Structures are given as structure tokens and as C-alpha cells.
């Protein structure tokens, strides 16, 4: 009954209703899209760090992080990685060693990585980050993938030969011939300048390192919280040092905090501005009908009923408008989620806290990005209808009827 009455009332003054309707709809749509864009930017920044190589949680031997000594190895037992994977946590193990890479007359100090390409492909995005060439095969083949700046300073191309010379674990001079099969995009300053990535087998042969790992990285792609991941790590491997991406990339962590705060402040301001406008229009329309309310009161409608009626009207309108707004906003946000806004027109590449920023800014649409703007719209609508309704309900019927 309430609903019918509300609906009919709305249509009585078509123009007014439509005006408010459009206002609410457009505002909802814009808010959904904006929220999605900002959320997308935040997520992208975190994921770009964690998903590429850093992971969400990292595990090291107790004193590895102090001096990064080649000999600080994790007590590794076979099957450790599958323990994580069976809980839905992606995991990869890596080994590192410094050495020399020479190509023709040029040489450079590099950090060699030994990785398992299969594990990396499953749980991390490094394999997608090539600007030229291909990622490592699942078998050892003497291939190496170089960081962007490193490849430039050694002046190599795909197919170029690279001589690796290192101090092996047994003290001998390890040396191998490698072929450059891939060159990475800019990822982070460290990787760009010194990363030379090998298959784990090739690394072990070069460095005469039979077993053990320096690092195990976990990535649940956002599924689990950092605390849960740390706990899982501690349960599987005892007596190790466990860190999160926030510890390893403090600058990025700081930036995420900034973006989150900006998100909320910005959202708040948008709502306030939109809200003020909406309050205005709804107030106006409600006050216009004070005469009406007077008549209703005179006819015996209780004040509470009157208030309820007005609020329901506002909510119905709000609901309809927000559905319309969502109908516009969601597709637009999805478009930006798929295609993103390409800012490479403006930028040729820069870094935030050492990490290269993707030139494509993608939105992220989720339940939160839809419901939060809509919920706030509803709250504003009800509040802005409550005030005049309350006034009208308390007004003397005669006064109301004769209100000008």
C-alpha cells in the first residue's frame, strides 16, 4: 500500500520526479566509475609488485637478509612447495648469486637468479613481463633473461651470446656460455639494472650449488590476508625469517596508504557535493508539497504515517535512480576494467618507489565499488527527505494547508 501510494505520488509531478531521478542516476553512475578507477589503481599497484616477483610473503634463512651470503641457505625438503599449493597458495623457490656477465667488449656485474619456470608461470607474472623474446623453457637450455637496462648496457639482442663468470660455491671459477632469449620490460630499478635469470639447473651448474634455496615466495593473488600467509609459512618451515611485501617494499606500502586515504577523502567530498545538491532538490520538492501534507493531516493521517510516506517515496525514487545509475555505471566501469585508460600518451614511463608504473590504468569493479556509492546515496536521500517530512508532520494542519 505504501509503495503504491509512493509510486503514484512520484508520477504526479513528472518533471520534478524526472529531474531528481536523473540527478541521482548520473551521480550514482559517476561514483561507481570513480570508485572503480581508484580501487583499480590501488590494486594494480599492489598486484604489480606482489604478482610479478616479490610475492605477498617471503621466506629466508635466518641471517640471509643481513649480508645476503650465498651460503645462507633455507633448510629445504622436497614437497614443501606442494604443501603451500594444496592450500591454494602459489609458491616458488629461488636461488641468487652475484657474478660477471660479458658480451663482446662489454661486461657488467649482475645478480644471477635460478628459478623454476613452471612454478613461476603458475604463481607469478614475471613471464608476462617480456618486452622482447620468450620466457625460459621448463627444461634447462643455457638461456638467460636480462633486465631492461642491463640488456642495453651490455648491448645485447635476442640470440646474443653471454659469458657468465662467477665465484662458485666450491671456490672455483664457474663459467658458462649463455644465450639471451628474453629481455624484460622495466619492472623495478634493481631488476632492470642487474637481473640475469636462469633456469635453476643452469644456475646450479654454474655456481656448483647442489641443493638448497635462498628464497621461497608465496602469492595467493589477494586471496588470503598477509597474516594468514605468514602463519602458514611459519607452520611449514620452522626457524626461518618470514617477511611480507610491506617489509620488503616499504616505499610502496607507504604509497598504498596514501592512495587509500585519497580514495576515502575524495569519495567523501564527492558525496558531500552530490549529496548537497540532492538534498536541495529533494527538500525543495518536499516543501512544495507542504500544502498536500496539510490536507492529509486534516483528513486524519498520523504524523508518523506521513513521515513514513515521504521517506518511502524518496527511497523508491532513490532505488529506481540508483538502479538506473548502476545500469550506466557498471558497463562503463567494466569497460575501464577490461581496457583501462591508457596514459602512455602522457608518459614514457616512470617509477613509484622503484617500481615501474603500468601505462594502462585499469578500474576494478566489485560489490564494494557498487554498493558503497549506492548505499551512501540511499542514506543521503532518506535523510534529506526525513527533515522536511518531519517538519510537515509536526506542522499544524491548517497552517500547512495555507502555507505559501
Amino acid at each position, binding site marked *: 500500500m505504501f509503495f503504491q501510494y509512493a509510486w503514484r505520488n512520484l508520477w504526479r509531478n513528472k*518533471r*520534478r520526479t524526472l*529531474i*531528481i531521478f*536523473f*540527478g541521482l542516476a*548520473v*551521480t550514482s553512475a*559517476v561514483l561507481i566509475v*570513480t570508485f572503480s578507477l581508484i580501487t583499480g589503481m590501488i590494486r594494480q599497484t599492489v598486484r604489480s609488485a606482489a604478482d610479478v616477483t616479490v610475492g605477498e610473503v617471503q621466506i629466508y634463512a635466518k641471517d640471509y637478509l643481513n649480508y645476503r651470503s650465498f651460503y645462507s641457505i633455507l633448510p629445504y625438503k622436497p614437497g614443501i612447495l606442494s604443501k603451500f599449493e594444496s592450500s591454494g597458495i602459489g609458491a616458488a623457490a629461488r636461488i641468487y648469486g652475484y657474478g660477471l656477465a660479458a658480451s663482446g667488449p662489454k661486461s657488467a656485474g649482475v645478480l644471477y637468479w635460478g628459478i623454476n619456470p613452471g612454478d613461476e608461470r603458475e604463481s607469478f607474472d614475471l613471464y608476462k613481463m617480456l618486452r622482447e623474446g620468450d620466457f625460459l623453457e621448463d627444461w634447462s637450455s643455457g638461456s638467460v633473461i636480462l633486465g631492461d637496462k642491463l640488456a642495453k648496457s651490455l648491448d645485447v639482442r635476442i640470440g646474443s651470446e653471454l659469458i657468465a663468470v662467477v665465484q662458485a660455491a666450491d671456490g672455483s671459477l664457474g663459467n658458462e656460455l649463455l644465450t639471451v632469449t628474453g629481455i624484460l620490460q622495466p619492472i623495478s*630499478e634493481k631488476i632492470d639494472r642487474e637481473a640475469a635469470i636462469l633456469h635453476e639447473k643452469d644456475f646450479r651448474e654454474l655456481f656448483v650449488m647442489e641443493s638448497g634455496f635462498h628464497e621461497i615466495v608465496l602469492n595467493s593473488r589477494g586471496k588470503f590476508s598477509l597474516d594468514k600467509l605468514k602463519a602458514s609459512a611459519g607452520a611449514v618451515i620452522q626457524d626461518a625469517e618470514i617477511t611480507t611485501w610491506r617489509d620488503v617494499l*616499504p*616505499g610502496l*606500502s*607507504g*604509497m598504498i*596508504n*596514501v592512495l587509500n*586515504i585519497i580514495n576515502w577523502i*575524495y569519495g567523501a*567530498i*564527492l558525496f*558531500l*557535493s*552530490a549529496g*548537497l*545538491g*540532492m*538534498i*536541495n*532538490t529533494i*527538500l*525543495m*520538492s518536499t516543501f*512544495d508539497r507542504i500544502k498536500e501534507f496539510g490536507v492529509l493531516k486534516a483528513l486524519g493521517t498520523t504524523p508518523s504515517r506521513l513521515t513514513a510516506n515521504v521517506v518511502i517515496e524518496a527511497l523508491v525514487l532513490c532505488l529506481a535512480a540508483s538502479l538506473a545509475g548502476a545500469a550506466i555505471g557498471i558497463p562503463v566501469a567494466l569497460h575501464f576494467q577490461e581496457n583501462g*585508460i591508457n*596514459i602512455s600518451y*602522457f*608518459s*614514457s*614511463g*616512470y*617509477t*613509484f*618507489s*622503484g617500481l615501474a*608504473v603500468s601505462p594502462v590504468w585499469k578500474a576494478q569493479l566489485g560489490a564494494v565499488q557498487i554498493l558503497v556509492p549506492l548505499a551512501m546515496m540511499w542514506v543521503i536521500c532518506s535523510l534529506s527527505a526525513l527533515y522536511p517530512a518531519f517538519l510537515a508532520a509536526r506542522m499544524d494542519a491548517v497552517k500547512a494547508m495555507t502555507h505559501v
Partner: protein
Amino acid sequence: MFKWKRSLFDMQPQIAWRSLRRNLRRTAITVSAVSLGLAFAVFYTAMHAGVNKQLIEQGIRFYGGHIILEHPQYRHAPSVDLFIADAEKLMSKIQKSSSSISASRTIINYGMARTAYASDGILIKGIEPTSNGESPFSKLIVSGRFIDRERGSNICMGKKLSELLRLGVGQKFVLTTNDITGTLTEGLCRVEGIFETGIEEIDSRLVLAPIGYLEDLLMMPSGGANQIAVLLDDPGKQSKVIRQISTLLADESINLYSWKEVLPELASYLRVDQAANLIFQGILFFIILFTIFNAILMSVNERNREFAVLLAVGTPPLRLRWQLLLEAFYIGIAGCLIGLIIGGMVSYIFQIKGLNASFVYGNEMSISGLSVSPLIHAHVTWDLLAGLGGAMLVLVVLVSFVPMLRISRISLMETLR
């Protein structure tokens, strides 16, 4: 024509004013929507401008100057033997050409620093310590003192480098490098001071030496330099100064770069930041204007009858449109003024006091290799205020056009039924 025009100005302003006053609450709310949105836009832009200004200043001070002059092949493949031979002469010519610029020269080379315990690759820069006012590094000394002589082999180095080499103030190390003929040469240096910039690349690699010392060690002709850096008192005059200097260089093969070419990553970030800013401001303005549009539309709607009557008795529609425009204009002016005052004042307070955001990101955040200080100062300029305020005002007025058109479409028949 004359009479008609005059009468437009005659009554309409007061009528517009009065109709706004009639519904004071609505007017107030509309005005506050404008002012709140504008105030935030001003504050947001000013804070961003402050951060960017700090980044630019840092970039310019640490990596050169507003304008950099180099040997034509230097940028592509930096090597100490690509130098400007008569840099000092050129510098004095440049400084004579304008009073608000200062020029300094630098010799740059890569080398190795060796101590009894360790060795590491370094970037060594020979600087003129006494010119160019204070070097930014002199304020970042954490132990010892900054170098202040043009000769002598006492140097300053970054903190991380000193830790790696296990060096304290007063201790020595051997510098190995190539001179301009490519011959390996060695020198003994002593640490006069240690600085900390917070930028890892600088703190772990950079050694600053008196330029005279490097001239001798590298066999560089006296007065030569790998880079001449020009600092401007007023960055706004950059293009003018570039033109001036270009004419001075007309017959010499020396390349000139603005800081944007020397720090492309920073320039990139600034462009993107500006684009993102525009997008966000655009959205904000859109929402505000839309609600104002709504408000004006509503007010026209409820005055349908009134307008219909006025039109029926012969009022030219133009007059009514003009009234609407004035109403929008008044709302705009009021909103803009209040918004600018609030936004401007709040921004100014943060310009003076700064906002300490260390609880948010501590000391660690960096953009393109330049560290972002946790103490943010806003940067408010008249340009900023005029720009945003003006834009808002114009848009508010424009927004009234659509409702205006409605006036002529009021069907007298229907409305006056």
C-alpha cells in the same frame, strides 16, 4: 536597440537577486555546493602542486639545473673526454646576460674507490663549491663538513658508500679512474664530510670533489667541464632564458637541455599526475555542475506558472533568460568567492605549516628516484585560484543555458490551465 539594452540591465538584476533571496535555503545550499567543491579542488590541487614543486626542486638541485649544457655527444654516451673546453668563459657570458640566473660547471666521471677493506664503483663529480649559492648537499651533511674549496683532495661522499667502504671522516681512500686520454690514473682522497639525501642511488655512489682536483687528476684543461648547469631564480622565465642562451651558443657545438629532458622520468610522472588531476577535478566539477543544473532546473520548474504568466503579459523571453543567467551568475560568484577563500586559506595554512604525512608513508616513498618528503607543503598561487575559480564561474553560468531554453518552450496553454 539602445533603450532595449538599457532596460535589460534596469530591473533584471534586482529581480534575479530577489528571486534568489526568496528561497534562501535553496540558494544557500546551492552556493555551498559550489563553494565546498571549489574549496576542495583548490586544496587538492595546491597539495599536489606542493609535492610536485618539491620533486622538481630536488631533481634540479641534485641532478643539475633548470638548463644544462653539454658536449653534443655526451648525453648519448657519457664519457669524461666529451667536455666543453672553455666552460668558464661561456658561464660568465651567460651570467652577464641576465641577473637572475647563476651558472656552475661540473666534471663527471666514473671510477673505483678502494680502502684497506673494500672497494666499490663510484660516480665522482667535481663541483665549484663556492658558486651557485649553497649546494643542496651542504644541508644534508650528517658528519664532517661540506667541501668549500676549489682545490685539494678532500671530498664528500654518500652515507651508504661510506658504510660500505668502512670510511669515517678524515680517513683516506684510493681513487682509480680514467683521465680524458683514457689512461688509468690514481689519486688519494680524504673524507671531509658524509651526506645523506635519502636517494639510494646517490647515497651509495656519489663522491663530490673540488673541481680543481679533478681538473688536475683527469688532465682536463683548466676551466673545462662536462656539464654547465644554469639555475633560474624564476623558473617561469625558462623559455626566455633558453632562447637567450641559444643565441649565445649560436656558433658553438654545444647542446642545451631543459631539466625535463635530463629527468624524463620525472617529467613523465608530472604529466601523468596532471592528467590524473584533470580527470579527478573533471569528475568533481561534473558532479557539482550537475547538481547545480538540477537545482536551476527545479527552480525553473517550480516557477513555471510565474513565467507563463509573465510571458502571457508580453515579457520578452530574452528577459527571462537574462534573469536566469543572472541568477546563475550570482550563485556562481558567491560560491566561487567563498570557495576560493576557504580553499585558499586552508591551503595557505598547509603551505606554511606543512602536513606531516609520515604516519602514512614514513620516509621511504620515492618517485622516479627522488624521495618524497613526509612533510608536504601546499603551493598556492594566484594563478591557481583564478584558474579554478574562473573555470567554475564560467561553467556555472553555462550550465544555466539549458534550463534557459526551456523558458521559450513553456506552453502557455498547458501551464495556465
